[in-house]
């Protein structure tokens, strides 16, 4: 934690609360989504305040960036496109005021009780277990969060890669049944300024992502933040037409999707060669093995996030980039 006065904490908390309130209470979807992106960014400030820079990076890139892009894509038809048919059917009748006051009472009571309990719990906390401190400080990898992610709780990260794959598989199953409306094509082609921005952003994002991946073993960073940046690059390519949707998944994309889970699971099985337990690192090449696993995870995360945004079974680089005014 950075030594700051409690006034900053109170202001930060009030800002978070006001933003969250506006998100859930606003009329339109677009307003709610944009405010949610701002909420994600203010939450990143909260993570920095609490001394968790890995979380700040991840929150800004994944929660505010990728989730914001997904949400904006999904609510796009409701506000921007005059030609798109509005959802039909009669609107649900507004809930009765008794029900509304019941909801208010539940949420208000729960909120007060939770706030009081959490504030009371925050006053007294135990210290770090000495075994944890020894395991983290004696490790070949310097960044403690990476040590926890890859080594001490590697099983959680392995399953997390499986969750990423399952999200894409779930979407793929839905797509198989119906043709989900993907991105609407831009009205007059891609404006050249957006195209130039994407062209300039490509080397910057690539270098930043690779830097975050490489320095994840010593400083805040790692595979997730790097993968999120590359996924954001994929999202920008998809938005400017440099990547086109396909209705099948090419073999290279399938490899990219399963690479993270596969390498991690393969390492888990291989580690039985040099140890009695799966998911244990060899004493000689710990940092190298960790970097290899992180590289595979980064590629998988980038491919999965781009495919999740694209909403299609596969993608490919466009043959001729679309140029507009």
């Amino acid at each position, binding site marked *: 934690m950075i030594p700051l006065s409690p006034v900053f904490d109170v202001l930060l*908390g009030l800002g978070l609360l006001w933003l969250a309130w506006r998100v*859930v209470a606003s009329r339109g*979807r677009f307003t709610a989504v944009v405010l949610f992106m701002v909420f994600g960014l203010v939450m990143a400030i909260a993570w920095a305040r609490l001394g968790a820079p890995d979380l700040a990076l991840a929150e800004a890139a994944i929660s505010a960036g990728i989730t914001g892009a997904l949400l904006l894509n999904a609510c796009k038809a409701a506000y921007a496109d005059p030609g798109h048919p509005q959802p039909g059917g009669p609107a649900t009748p507004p809930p009765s005021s008794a029900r509304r006051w019941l*909801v208010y009472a539940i949420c208000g009571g729960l909120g007060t009780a939770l706030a009081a309990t959490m504030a009371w719990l925050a006053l007294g906390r135990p210290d*770090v277990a000495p075994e944890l401190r020894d395991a983290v400080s004696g490790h070949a990898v310097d960044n403690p969060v990476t040590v926890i992610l890859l080594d001490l709780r590697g099983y*959680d990260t392995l399953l997390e890669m499986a969750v990423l794959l*399952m999200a894409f598989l779930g979407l793929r199953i839905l*797509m198989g049944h119906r043709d989900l409306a993907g991105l609407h094509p831009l009205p007059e082609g891609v404006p050249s300024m957006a195209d130039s921005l994407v062209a300039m952003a490509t080397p910057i994002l690539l270098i930043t992502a690779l830097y975050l991946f490489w320095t994840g073993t010593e400083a805040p960073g790692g595979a997730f933040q790097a993968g999120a940046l590359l996924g954001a690059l994929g999202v920008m390519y998809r938005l400017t037409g440099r990547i086109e949707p396909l209705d099948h998944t090419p073999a290279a994309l399938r490899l990219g999707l399963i690479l993270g889970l596969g390498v991690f699971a393969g390492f888990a099985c291989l580690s039985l060669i040099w140890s009695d337990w799966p998911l244990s690192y060899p004493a000689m090449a710990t940092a190298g093995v960790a970097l290899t696993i992180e590289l595979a995870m980064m590629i998988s995360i980038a491919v999965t996030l781009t495919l999740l945004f694209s909403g299609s079974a596969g993608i490919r680089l466009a043959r001729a980039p679309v140029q507009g005014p």
Partner: protein
Amino acid sequence: MTAVVPLAATAGLLFAIGLYGMIGRTGLIHRLLGANIMASAIFLFLVVLSTRGIEASADPVPQAMVLTGIVISVCITAFALGLIRYLRVMTGEDELRRSTRDADGQSADD
């Protein structure tokens, strides 16, 4: 230590606000945003509970868990948005309708 009490109380109230978004609003996107806010509140509380003091950085175990949680919540959001789009394509609706069943138990929507 008392320095993190404001953020801890904020986490509790944020959870309630997210809960209101989930049960008090009928639009599906608003419900999804409410769920995300609830997740953020729990993450905040998890990290706040483990701060050591002014000079130390945050405990790495909750940080790693919250990092995992952030990635999982984006996966859930993506899949939920796919389901919402599916609902829109199938029925043209943006909200979950209360199903209408007559006295025989047959739904009027089928």
